């Protein structure tokens, strides 16, 4: 009963390859100038609280209310996201990753996007980046 046939093995391998391909590939596309951008709201309590609200309105439906990921949508508490620079995440919010289902959020004003980043980064600081065990895995 528990044994997979060759088709099952091939399907599992194919899925693994697809998942590996999806792992943070967008990071390679971020231009150097964008990578180094600094969040003007880093560590500001008001901005973090505001970012949490915007996150709840726009991001939580896919990434979960606590940013732990939902289904195939990645956790934002993962090392990959928490170790990404503010500029890299800002670039992702601006451009999206349309092929992987992440829409562009250029429609949100820039300050609002920085507020979201301040909130997302605060999650890593609160949990301790290295000790974070994302429930949704690292599938960004």
């Amino acid at each position, binding site marked *: 009963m528990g044994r997979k046939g060759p088709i099952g093995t091939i399907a599992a391998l194919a899925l693994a390859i697809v998942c590996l391909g999806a792992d943070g590939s967008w990071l390679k596309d971020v231009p150097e100038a964008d990578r180094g951008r600094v969040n003007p709201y880093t560590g500001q309590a008001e901005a973090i609280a505001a970012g949490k609200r915007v996150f709840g309105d726009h991001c939580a439906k896919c990434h979960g209310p606590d940013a732990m990921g939902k289904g195939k949508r990645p956790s934002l508490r993962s090392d990959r996201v928490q170790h990404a620079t503010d500029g890299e995440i800002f670039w992702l919010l601006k451009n999206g990753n349309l092929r992987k289902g992440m829409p562009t959020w250029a*429609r949100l004003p820039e300050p609002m996007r920085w507020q979201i980043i301040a909130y997302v980064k605060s999650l890593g600081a609160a949990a301790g980046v290295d000790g974070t065990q994302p429930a949704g895995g690292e599938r960004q």
Partner: protein
Amino acid sequence: MRKEVAAVFLQRVCNKIGLLMLGLLASASLRAQEPPYFVTYSDVMEEPGNLEISYKGISAAPKNANSFNSATTEFEYGLKAWWTTEVYLTGQTTQNDSTLFTGFRWENRVRLLQRNHFINPVLYAEFENVNEADRSFLEVMNHDSISDLYLSNAQARKEKERSMELKLILSSNTHGWNISENFITEKAMNQSEPWEFGYALGVSRPLALTASSKACVFCRENFSAGLEMYGGLGTTDQFGWKQTSQYLAPIVQFNIPKGPSIGFEPSFGLNANSLGMLWRFKVSYEIEQFFGVFRKNAH
């Protein structure tokens, strides 16, 4: 006995529908920060898996014609982050005349570039099956004129048009502003008419660029305002502004947190071919991960 079985069955069906409606309401969310336009399209696509249901109403009292109210219901679904599909159902009621269903439209919007640029192009393709009694004013084309409204509904509904409409949508987001330009062309497939042209331009901005740290309903960030201009550009036989209708319209939209969005737009006719005033109203309601709601309710 049969009646009892039927009653139980009906009750179960009603319960299921009730549960489904509760699920839909519970999953409704703030509409994503979209530009408030009524006619102009921007590069904003529906998020994958989300369904947005909108009602757009129009009210007008044209000179020398009966006043009317038109209703359009839209179902917009995000198939992919770069592909949105939408169905429109339209109807109208004319004073001293009748109320009728005027037809449907099915459109698809595809974002052409994967990355965000200063100008983001989106291709729009639509199939229309509407009769001439349609008053939805979803776009203004060709030599559309106030005189088109002089026909009675009985006369106008006899003429049905099946057409393909294409739009090139160009849209930019900068410093909180959205600036969008639409170039529209339409060809009737069941009539030997020339290609028709139209345009729509829009500019809008939320009233605040930052979110407030505390939950609030009437914060400035929940409101956006803008301006639209739209009108016809003639046909391949007679291209240009001559004998077209043109409108200028200020817009305001209120995004109720965790609720629907409500928009209002008075459109001012700019020339003698246009209606003097069109009052537009809309309410939109977004259901997150629409098919997920069914799955949840099935368990």
